[in-house]
């Protein structure tokens, strides 16, 4: 797996709620990003290999492996792209778990879409 994104303007949005994924995609596309979506954890590694996105917007509670496991796996395999983790569970413990798994940013739902775009901007620049 390559460690530097070939396609920095491409964002992989992973959420099992298609409506929320659609909103995230529309907000990001409005800001100039291209997006691909996946609905479960087992589709993420393949999508990263296929598209090598600049950043991933990753929901924590998705069909297995969950967002935290996916994040850990990506970091373990040396993927250095930006990971913006989002979750409706937003306690300090959930936030801490996300950062320990390797996320760059954590956003608790609901959040302003501008925050999502800013977080993706930062994540892409870091990668």
């Amino acid at each position: 797996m390559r460690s530097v994104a070939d396609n920095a303007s491409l964002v992989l949005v992973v959420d099992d709620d298609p409506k929320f994924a659609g909103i995230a995609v529309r907000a990001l596309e409005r800001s100039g990003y291209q997006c691909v979506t996946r609905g479960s954890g087992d589709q993420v590694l393949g999508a990263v290999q296929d598209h090598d996105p600049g950043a991933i917007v990753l929901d924590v509670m998705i069909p297995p492996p969950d967002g935290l496991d996916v994040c850990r796996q990506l970091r373990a395999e040396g993927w250095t792209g930006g990971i913006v983790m989002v979750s409706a569970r937003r306690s300090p413990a959930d936030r801490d778990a996300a950062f320990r798994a390797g996320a760059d940013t954590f956003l608790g739902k609901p959040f302003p879409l501008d925050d999502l775009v800013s977080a993706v901007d930062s994540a892409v620049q870091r990668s």
Partner: protein
Amino acid sequence: MGLRRLSLRIRLAALATAGAMVVLSAGSVLLYEGLTRELSNAITDELAIRVVDLAAGTEGGAAPPGSPRVTAQVIDQSGEVLSPPDADPMIGTAELARASQEQIVVDREVPLVGENARVLARPITVNGADVVGVAATSTTALTVARNRLIVVLVIAGPLLAIGIGIGVWALTGVALRPVRRMASQAATISAAQVSRRLPQPAREDEIAELGRTLNGMLERIENAVARERAFIDDAAHELRTPIAVLRGELELAAHDPDDPQAVSQSLASALEETDRLSDLADGLLALARADAGQLRPGDATTDMLAAARTGVEHLPPRGEVAVEVHGEPAVVQADPEWVRHIVSNLVGNAQRHATSRIIVTVAVADECGLLVVADDGAGFPSNLLPHAFDRFARADSARGQVSGGAGLGLAIVASLTQAAGGTVSADNGPPLGGARVDVRVPLATEPGSHRDLINRCAE
């Protein structure tokens, strides 16, 4: 202030003191009477022995009777003192006349002995002559002993009773120390600290049992609080997801006010999310009412087959999944709204997971209405099956999401079915190979026999 307002320790000490006072008082009276009687009898016995000795000593020519403690005389019938000679008689004529017939004992002043004296006189025979033997001794020692005994009993009795009270107070304090520790610890346990436990004495007595019982109660409370917190946490999580979508749609609409198509799309989506939120709120409310015991079957009856057809007709179609309704009428004792909820939740859930087909079957079985909702999807994952009706039970593939995808639908089905006296079960397999949920509700019948049907449906 009543006794009830005093501490148990003080009450026990006071009771012990009062009890000891009563017992010691009675004991003191008995002791005083007994000792006095014994001492008095001993003096009388000694006088009687002296009189016997007097007869023997005189008869045997022994030394004149009398001793330092006992003064003795031998007096003839005329009142003359035979021994010791020249002594004044210790008894008068009247007493001499009585003593010539029987033994007499008199307490009075005797000049030869003292102010307080006891005189014993009885007929004896000396050298063949009938005479009267008289012996007298001082009773001052007896009076002194009596007075001392009274002083000792009056002072020692109350002191002993108070001592017993203090001892009981101290022992009760030691015995109740674990209770005070438990009370002190219990006072610091709040709803936020239900994991704490009371100190439990390392012994096997009633106080240790009390500690175990209270700690068991705390454990049950902790489990209940944990379940409630988990429920609130899950409910908050499930509410945030549609709120996030709603907010996102409104933000997008606000950002593109000049794009009618985008605005229309966002508003339509936002409306769907409000429905989702409304369903979720209804679900949470239904579960809360079930928890509060407010779901009651009442007297309403419903045809499950008609309710199933109506419920399916009102569900929005999803993709190419076909829903068939078969069976026979089964009028059950349940609120029509409940049955409609059960059908819509189960069929809605099946629609999310079926590949192409759902069958809803209604039948009468064992005096129950049987509603079966089956699909040709992947079925319940094995790890979810035992928890399919738990609140917020969500499988990896989201099976169980029926009420706005919140994982509340099957829990609501279970609550409504149970409120109607029925049972619900989940499995995988026939008739379509996917998931299958069976709902059994007692048939409508005459009042009074409904309970029997409930029992049969539960078997």
